[in-house]
């Protein structure tokens, strides 16, 4: 069995005391270990931002890439070696702002990636500017009169784009979050795990105390239908006094993108020979031009 300590690293996080990333980090490690995945069987791809430093503090294969490009790099990783579990950890600016096009594409593509978005609704590492998920009226250095744009709704967007696993957790409940990530790891295609997370330095409005009384798990409702897309979409619009967490939508009926690629039926691409055909086959390509 894999032990959570296998993921331990001697490198200490640079996150602020009280940062939600600690809980997310622990939940990720716990979920991976409890899924019996060893560090060498996993690729954790991140972008740039506080949360994206997660692989640096973990003994695991990974790549820390560019702001916004996490999902694009991870898609290449998955298509080259779909034998590995691919997990993305990046923030809301990375995933929903700069990486918006990749977010929509990954969702509708149903690529086999667990996409954990550390959603603190602010830019932390650049020291406090509003993000796509900041509420309207949110005052920051770049929105001095308050944000004019509407708050981005990642769950509704993911459902609309065709995502087959749409969920939300929060960093105040590590057990629930670890359970959620484990469910996402077991999912067949693209799995969004949006994680509400306080930024204790730059977004004190969304504190633990603000969030805790508002969140409730849809799984606690006995009659919640997780495969009802329209119902899930309606629930994804709920925000305010009550905020749904848990798996809002899940369908295992849709094949993952990598399942649709003929070349990958023979196993991970990286394990296949670079030139898999007989010499005569390649010589015959020339005859197309004769």
């Amino acid at each position, binding site marked *: 069995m894999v032990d959570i300590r296998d993921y331990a690293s001697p490198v200490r996080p640079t996150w602020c005391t009280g940062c939600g990333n600690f809980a997310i980090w622990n939940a990720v490690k716990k979920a991976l270990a409890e899924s019996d995945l060893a560090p060498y069987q996993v690729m954790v791809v991140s972008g740039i931002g506080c949360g994206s430093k997660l692989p640096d503090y973990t003994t695991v294969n990974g790549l820390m890439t560019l702001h916004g490009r996490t999902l694009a*790099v991870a*898609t*290449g990783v998955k298509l080259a070696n779909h034998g590995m579990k691919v997990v993305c950890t990046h923030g809301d600016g990375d995933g929903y702002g700069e990486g918006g096009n990749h977010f929509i594409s990954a969702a509708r593509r149903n690529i086999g990636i667990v996409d954990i978005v550390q959603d603190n609704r602010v830019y932390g590492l650049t020291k406090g500017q509003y993000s796509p998920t900041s509420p309207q009226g949110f005052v920051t250095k770049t929105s001095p009169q308050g944000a004019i744009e509407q708050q981005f709704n990642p769950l509704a967007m993911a459902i609309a784009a065709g995502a087959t696993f749409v969920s939300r957790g929060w960093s105040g409940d590590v057990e629930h979050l670890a359970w959620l990530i484990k469910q996402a790891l077991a999912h067949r295609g693209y799995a969004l795990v949006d994680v509400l997370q306080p930024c204790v330095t730059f977004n004190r409005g969304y504190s633990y105390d603000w969030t805790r009384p508002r969140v409730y798990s849809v799984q606690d409702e006995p009659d919640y239908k997780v495969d009802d897309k329209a119902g899930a979409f309606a629930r994804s619009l709920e925000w305010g006094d009550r905020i749904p967490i848990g798996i809002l939508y899940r369908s295992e009926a849709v094949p993952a993108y990598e399942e649709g690629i*003929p*070349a990958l039926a023979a196993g991970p691409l990286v394990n296949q020979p*670079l*030139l898999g055909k007989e010499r005569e086959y390649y010589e015959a390509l020339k005859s197309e*031009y*004769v």
Partner: protein
Amino acid sequence: MTLNEMTLKIGGEAGMGVESTGMGFAKALTRAGLHVFAMQDYHSRIRGGHNFYQIRISDQDIHSHLEPVDLLLAMTKVAIDEHLREIVPHGGVIYDSSIVVDDAALAERSVQAFPLPLAQIAEEEGGSKIMANTAAIGAAAGVTGLGLERINSVIRDNFTRKGQAVVDANLKVAAAAYRLAEEKYGGAFPFKLEARSAPQRMLISGNEALALGALMGGCNFVAGYPMTPGSPILEWFSVRSADLGIVTKHTEDEIAAINMIIGAAHMGVRAMTTTSGGGFALMVEGLGLAGMLEVPVVVVNVQRPGPATGHATRHEQADLLFMLHAAQGEFPRIILAPGTIEQCFEAGSRAFNLAEKYQCPVLIISDAFLAHSLRALDLNALDLEVPIDRGALLGNAELDALTERYKRFQNRESGISPRALPGHPKAVHAPSSDEHDEYGQICEDAEVRIQQNAKRMRKLETARAEMHAPLQYGHADAELAFVTWGSTVGPLRTAVDMLGGKGKSARVVQISDVWPLPVDKVTAALQGAKKVICVEQNFTGQLATLLRAHADIRVDALIRKYDGRPMSPEYILGQLKGVL
């Protein structure tokens, strides 16, 4: 009479089948054992406008088009108006009898009119006007004396998938047009074509040769976003991907394309993206990521005129310095600039070995003229026996034997750190695009920054030693030396041959390995030159700038062109008068 030396031009609107007709005729000529150089000129539109396809035919191996046209196949009146001035005396124009032609204008230039009821033949013999193009190439074969069977073999190839009835109808149309054209105009037309016995040849474009080369170089992952003229390479791989067992991905944008190949190449496959300048502009940040993470990726930029949308379907060589400097910061990259079809194949196959050996991005800079032009090549001109060198890649046995934590960016003299692919229990690593230490961990230490930056940059010096010397053509000791890059070498070689015909000695020095510039080899190639003229298709003289900055070579003059149309040998000779 002139035998087997002629230029045929086909002109018409987009959607009329100018390219397929030209391609069909060029293939027939290739099968007849003749040397062929074919180029196309088209607008960025799906219907209408004016496109042309130009085929030069010779008994010798040829490397470019020539301006004078001997036979024009005009599908529209506009084609005649546009190209009449290019037709040589006693040359001819084949056109449908329904087109009203200014006979006096033709007579003034001693051009022969060859009106034929092409549409009528198509309708009567084949049952549909759509076969008028078949009638036209039948007629072209008729006036030039090229055997009808040469045309028939291409018709069979092109229409077999549509059924025997369609094949038969087209064969009837071609035969009828052939007979009529031969009978009415064959006697008066002085340019003739005769089949030669020759080894089997293929008619292949730069894009196709590059794709084939990349495939033989082990490329098994191609991602890209469509952009003319780079997308045919993505399409080439896509249509064959299931059969070849490779992965291709039409991505959401070019940014995704480069980042996807970085992810894929990091995992250990041989990955490439293909685009044009605008797409490459979007890839710039990703290029730096590949540089920082030392991921071996191959990026193809088939240049077109910029900036912005520029001329979507046209030709320019103005991205050289952009590709050399693209992305913030400094990191090693290798730039290959093929200029011929054979060099496209070679660049495609070599790129992956270089990328994995030096663990850096390899950029192939092609151009629209090279990408679209076709040449008849002997089958053995492209040697598919390409050695695969995966560089310092650690195998399972070496990884099993690791006793210490794996250092992805181990500081070595060559700058090349042994590479482990993710997935081995002893080589778990998570490198960062932040400056990092030997393990790949984020590190802001000044000494580590110096160590890692210098380590990366040393790879450039290691690579420089194996960069190829410039290719040389013409008289090696000539005092007049032209220096060039990319497809301009074709017309330039022809121009130098033409100078030779007038008793003037000159040579061509073509730089195909642009970066890291093999300075000593370039200097040696230009030894003894009294006058160095740089010929390139851009405004500022980018190769000349590069030579001055990095090899301390100051060219005496520039021959440039930036109208979106490739240089012709005649243009080069015309410009030469002004700079000598």
